[in-house]
């Protein structure tokens, strides 16, 4: 009996610790007349989100508003994020900034937010099917165009290799998941642009691998008579080691000439896989050319060192700032619309340029 009581007490103590830990996080309660915004990021998994949160806090400090940033542990924790969104709505803030992990999972919550009169601004990822009027503005990179930018640059480098190939060649793509708007748009943007460019040069293309991408790209083609095979891999969870395993499978094939990782985690997975394979480089035909997405110290040093060919970066800092600014405008009764932000191609040559360098966070 004594032991049972002791066990019970320990459990209670543990739960109490957890609760106090949670409590201190949401300490930013409403002040007198102050504006209070809830910001929900996709996760704290990569420095990309750290940069976005820094932007949010900077702007909040400037405007003198209160923000409370939360986000799930991993970008695949969709249910956790929906829960956080519902909690945010219950707190009745003056506005919510949301980077949704899943395009559809938040739809009910958005309706609730609208009914409660809470304006929502989406950032990083849009929600195309959101109930009309619930999302007042979307601050996001045109991800489809950003994916196409990667395809443009990679194709240009591989053009000669493709033209002179006597057998079918393979281009791999690693996407950390197939649920968020940003990742799927980038992945599809890359596939569609690469296909378009190849077709213009008289080559046929087949898309194989993950069903979502095969079914949603413009033209999947047939593998049997394709000159270029685009193979899409999606791991079961959004972690570097699973992205690495997925990437290694494609990198190990003799006919692979190019590779695209559609975010920081996927690009780092490709680099991890290359640790053993040593097949990446910047010489078309001899090495596999890899294009990444986003920045971070690992990707930056790989591009500088000639392991990765180049990458597309966004400006998460500016995205975070703009999100808070937009919420502020809405709270003050201003009309707002969607704000597209840009994706920039960078490689070893232009990394130091004034237009690029500020977007290359660590």
């Amino acid at each position, binding site marked *: 009996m004594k032991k049972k009581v002791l066990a019970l007490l320990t459990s209670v103590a543990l739960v109490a610790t*957890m609760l106090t830990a949670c409590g201190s996080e949401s300490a930013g309660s409403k002040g007198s007349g102050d504006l209070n915004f809830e910001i929900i990021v996709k996760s704290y998994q990569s420095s990309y989100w750290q940069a976005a949160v820094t932007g949010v806090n900077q702007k909040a400090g400037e405007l003198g508003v209160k923000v409370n940033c939360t986000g799930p542990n991993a970008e695949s924790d969709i249910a956790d994020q929906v829960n956080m969104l519902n909690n945010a709505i219950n707190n009745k803030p003056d506005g919510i900034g949301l980077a949704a992990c899943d395009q559809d999972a938040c739809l009910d919550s958005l309706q609730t937010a609208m009914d409660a009169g809470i304006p929502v601004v989406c950032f990083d990822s849009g929600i195309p099917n959101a109930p009309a009027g619930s999302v007042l503005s979307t601050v996001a990179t045109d991800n489809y165009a950003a994916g196409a930018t990667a395809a443009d640059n990679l194709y240009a480098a591989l053009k000669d290799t493709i033209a002179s190939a006597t057998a079918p060649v393979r281009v791999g793509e690693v996407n950390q998941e197939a649920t968020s708007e940003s990742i799927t748009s980038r992945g599809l943007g890359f596939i569609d642009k690469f296909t378009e460019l190849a077709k213009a040069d008289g080559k046929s293309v087949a898309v194989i691998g993950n069903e979502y991408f095969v079914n949603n790209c413009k033209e999947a083609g047939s593998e049997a008579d394709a000159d270029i095979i685009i193979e899409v891999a999606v791991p*079961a969870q959004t*972690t570097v080691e699973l992205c*690495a395993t*997925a990437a*290694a499978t494609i990198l190990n094939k003799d006919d692979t000439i190019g590779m695209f990782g559609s975010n920081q985690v996927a690009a*780092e997975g490709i680099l*991890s896989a290359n640790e053993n394979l*040593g097949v990446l480089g910047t010489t078309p035909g001899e090495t596999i050319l890899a294009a990444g997405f986003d920045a971070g110290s690992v990707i930056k040093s790989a591009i500088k060192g000639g392991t990765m060919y180049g990458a597309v970066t966004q400006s998460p800092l500016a995205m975070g700032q703009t999100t808070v600014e937009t919420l502020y405008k809405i709270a003050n009764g201003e009309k707002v619309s969607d704000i597209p932000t840009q994706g920039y191609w960078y490689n070893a040559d232009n990394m130091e340029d004034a237009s690029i360098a500020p977007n290359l966070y660590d």
Partner: protein
Amino acid sequence: MNKKNNVLSKFNNQKFIVLLVVIALFIFFSIMSPNFRKYTTVLSILDYSYYIILMAIGVTFPLITGGVDLSIGTGLICYSLAGGYLIVHCGWPTWAGMLVSVLFGVLIGLLNGCLVSLMNLPPFLATLCTCMITRGLGSLCSKGFGIPWPTAGTEGSWFRNIFKITVGETKYPIGFIWMILLVIVMGFVLNHTKIGRYTIAIGSNKEAAMLSGINVKFYHTMAYVISGFFAGLAAIAYSAVFATVQPGSGAGFELEAIGGAIIGGVSASGGVGSISGSLIGVFVICLLKTGLPYIGLQANWQQIITGLVLIGAVLVDILKKKKAVK
């Protein structure tokens, strides 16, 4: 006659069967995919197996006591983030960061041990709680940032050579030698030292162990400390192989280690198991994880097949017990 019996008993040994399965899987994938039969694939499989092997060696001890340690997966990431943060952001030398990782593991192991043996929390519940705690602690330690331990070629990156050395153009997976040595050492600890024998005794019959004068509380705690220690070592192996360590990941690693141990013959109800079995069992999981994508199966299928293999292993365990009772 005796010799013949020995050979026969080997065939009845789950470890031996599992070793045959590993070889069969390797041959199967090699035949099915020309890209699989490459030296670099073997190198990758080994690289990605070290952290799971180390966790499996450690978790074999709590499993044999009839318990489990669910905190090793998220713990691994937590220890790695803590050590890595000190190296990358505080300028600590690499060895000090590594030491912190291991000590952190021992500390959480000690906490697990106390919760289980002194406070009598069910191991599943106690380690589930520390699993959550370490998941959160990891993010706190690194202030939410992913941590890249010193990358190859930079200052302080010597620890990457512990597991893989490059001579000329070729890379050699020397980590495998350390794994074999550790398996031999821990196999000796399990079978020929007090700690090991008492661990088995606790798992077979805790009451009897207590009545025969064994300090059950101490040795029960030690099983979890060993598990934590190896999770700390696994943190170093993980950091040495992958470019970055992300806060929030790690959930699910423990299941690969526990699954490997159970496939390798550790009884799900305690009292039986071997370190070498756990090593071989882990390779079944690693081969499936690496090999299935090569034959074109998507991620979801890998998980389903690994799950089915585990059910098979547990069924074998149950059948063996039934046979023993008869």
